[in-house]
């Protein structure tokens, strides 16, 4: 089987999940008591207006027909109207997508920067104190709530030391890097432990592998052995793990964006929930699920490219 047909097959697998997702989200929002037309009109909701809008939106049709409408609108990029702002949901999401993407990628970068050296250190000094220290740190990252880590970082770096901005997103790319450093680091602290454990195991295995031993025996300096072989191998597993965990990181972004007032999708979700702006909640759920699926797909594809040993025939 060649690469193109693998891609085709992989995409085909997404179809039932996508359909299921739309059904689930549709039913979720549909189960809310109250009338959508009423909510959209707010104070202007005279009975005639409500009746007219109900008809316009097709809310008087049978459920399966409404679902088809929903999917049809979805395909044309129409996610409905926000109750609170009266704006198209897709416009609100588009305005908030950038910061979340920036934050997530930044967090991915930082977690790799943290995990790789620590994993190598732990593997090389296996079962000695550096190894134990790395494990203890990972545990801390795993069991501490991210809002708490965020507040502690804020307290230290923004309030006591005053070297980083407290909250917000900034207006230029260099600004974004500064403003999002603590938020991204908070997510990375929670993500690194998930990376370190398998990486350490992988590095241990690589170190024992024949080709490294051979290189060592041939007198290649230890540092080069590390870089050449170990790093390449660990990168592949890093990508896989990160791909699988993208949903986790987006979940972390919800909390972190709220604590640091980052104008992203996560903080929008919390706003929409407290304001009971259900079309926005629905749009965000779909959007974030789509991001997870895309990331999983990309991870798979990158993986097959990076590691030619993968047999995509199966």
């Amino acid at each position: 089987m060649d690469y193109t047909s693998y891609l085709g097959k992989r995409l085909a697998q997404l179809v039932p999940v996508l359909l299921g997702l739309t059904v689930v989200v549709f039913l979720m929002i549909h189960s809310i008591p109250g009338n959508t037309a009423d909510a959209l009109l707010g104070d202007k909701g005279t009975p005639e207006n409500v009746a007219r809008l109900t008809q316009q939106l097709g809310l008087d049709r049978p459920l399966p027909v409404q679902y088809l409408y929903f999917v049809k609108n979805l395909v044309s990029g129409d996610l409905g109207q926000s109750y609170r702002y009266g704006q198209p949901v897709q416009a609100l999401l588009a305005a908030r997508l950038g910061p979340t993407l920036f934050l997530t990628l930044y967090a991915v970068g930082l977690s790799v920067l943290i995990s790789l050296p620590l994993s190598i250190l732990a593997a090389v000094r296996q079962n000695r104190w550096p190894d134990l220290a790395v494990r203890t740190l990972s545990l801390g990252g795993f069991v501490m709530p991210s809002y708490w880590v965020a507040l502690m970082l804020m307290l230290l770096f923004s309030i006591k030391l005053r070297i980083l901005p407290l909250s917000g997103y900034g207006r230029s790319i260099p600004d974004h890097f500064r403003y999002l450093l603590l938020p991204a680091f908070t997510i990375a602290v929670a993500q690194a432990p998930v990376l370190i454990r398998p990486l350490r195991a992988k590095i241990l295995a690589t170190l024992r592998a024949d080709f490294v031993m051979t290189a060592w025996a041939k007198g290649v300096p230890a540092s080069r052995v590390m870089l050449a072989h170990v790093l390449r191998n660990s990168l592949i597993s890093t990508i896989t793990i990160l791909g699988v965990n993208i949903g986790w990181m987006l979940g972390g972004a919800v909390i972190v964006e709220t604590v640091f007032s980052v104008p992203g999708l996560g903080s929008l979700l919390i706003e929409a929930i407290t304001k009971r702006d259900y079309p926005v909640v629905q749009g965000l759920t779909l959007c974030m699920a789509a991001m997870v699926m895309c990331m999983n797909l990309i991870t798979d594809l990158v993986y097959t490219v990076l590691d030619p040993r993968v047999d995509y025939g199966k």
Partner: protein
Amino acid sequence: MKLWTLDRRPAAVLLAVLVGLVAGCSGGAGSGNSPGDASSKAGQATAGAKPGGVLTMARPREPDSLDPIVPTDNESIYTMLLIYDQLVRVAKDGKSVEAGLAETWETSQDGKTFTFHLRQGVKFHNGDPVTVDDVIYSLNRVKSDKKSGWADMYADIDTIVAKDAATLVITTKRPYVPMLANLSMFAASIVPKKLGESGYDFNAKPVGSGPFVFDHWSKGTEIVLKKNPDYWQKGLPYLDEVRFLLVAEDNTRNLKLQAGEVDIAADVPFSSIAELKSNPDVTVKAEPLMRVDFITMNTTRKPFDDVKIRQAVNYAVDKDALIQAVLFGNGKPANTFLPPMLYHDDAAPGYKNDVAKAKELMTQSSQPNGFKTTLNIASGDSLQNQVAIIVKEQLAKIGIDVTIQQLESGVKRKAFRDLNYDLSYQLMTSDVIDPDELTMFGGASATRTFWTGYNNPKVDQLAKDGQAETDPAKRAQIYKEIQKILSDDAPYIYLYYVPAANVTSKRVQNFTPLLTGNYRLEEVQLSK
């Protein structure tokens, strides 16, 4: 008035306010102090300050709407007052109104005819000139548009006509003292007739003639206003740009200010005021405000239909303890439903904390063994949260078991206005210098007496009388009586009058919130 919003304003000046009765009412020629040139006004360049620059202000909420006739919340109001002009506006001393789009005005001897001489050469932000037709259109709009939330305040207007291109005449059927005060309100902002009649959405992109031009509103993030270079007060505004950042978390606003990320933090927690005052880098503006906070009781529900119970809870709540614990001493116990302003009755006794008396009233009431009830507060509002926790404990002493329910502010407001609640934390601030606005909202039954369901025809009549009474001494007596009745019948748990709590960085010059809580950012400058 803005009912649910936090505001801050300076009230200390109340003595002076008494003098100010003149403001809204008395006949004769209007004050013609037209601030045609900024250099003659307060906005003189302060030493070390220079024009230009971008001012960033962190605020806890974003506006509900920027269409003048719609919203009731203070963020909307304070923003709109920077974008739109009105015929007259509240003067800085909070005691009178001064010229806006009307340069001068006269009130007839019988108090029923108001003549305004319009300022010439003023332009809307879209370049169109401001004409008398725009003014007539705008006033009719707030008076009779279906969307208007403020029609009641203009209901007494009989006719609005143009005498000539520069003169506007408003008549009322009976003497109407609060007229000038009401015309200074944001709701009476002047908008272009041409746009309005074509169904323009003023909320999406406001067009006025005020000192700042609306630039954009990133929902949930920020609102940006730009300088209006054609503003009629020559030389103003000094700033090039104003950014209102939405920072919902109370302490974050404070911290962002201290970190130098914003220039002004609005509504900082009172817990931090003492510390901020000792910080040499910032200036605390804890100034009086025409605001009153209370917990409304739904008198249409048992057991709050029983006046004994309403009085009992008033005695049971210790306002001084609240002021110490929550406001850190920054505030005064509320003794009537009017905040310190014109005709506020300073001598009214209010309800001093008296648990024994509260218990006694409870035993005489319909619920001698106590009861369970629910108190609605806005989620995320630390002030309301802390008050609720203390009130819960104080009411427990007289056998009332309070459940605290946190609701998103829109949801809470809906429950409040549908009278679908037991107890609700609310507050009112006055947008005008006249007590009429708050009396109509907090005393008369047009609002079901601020959605407590309390209904007293006598208060309604007195409120009407107050609008028509041109003799200041008699008028004072009327409002005193209204305050007494509402105090005795107690549809509210009277809490306190709080000051504004705005904090600015040292580089902000001339930032002075008015008693009405709004701020004239056109007069603000940044030092180098």
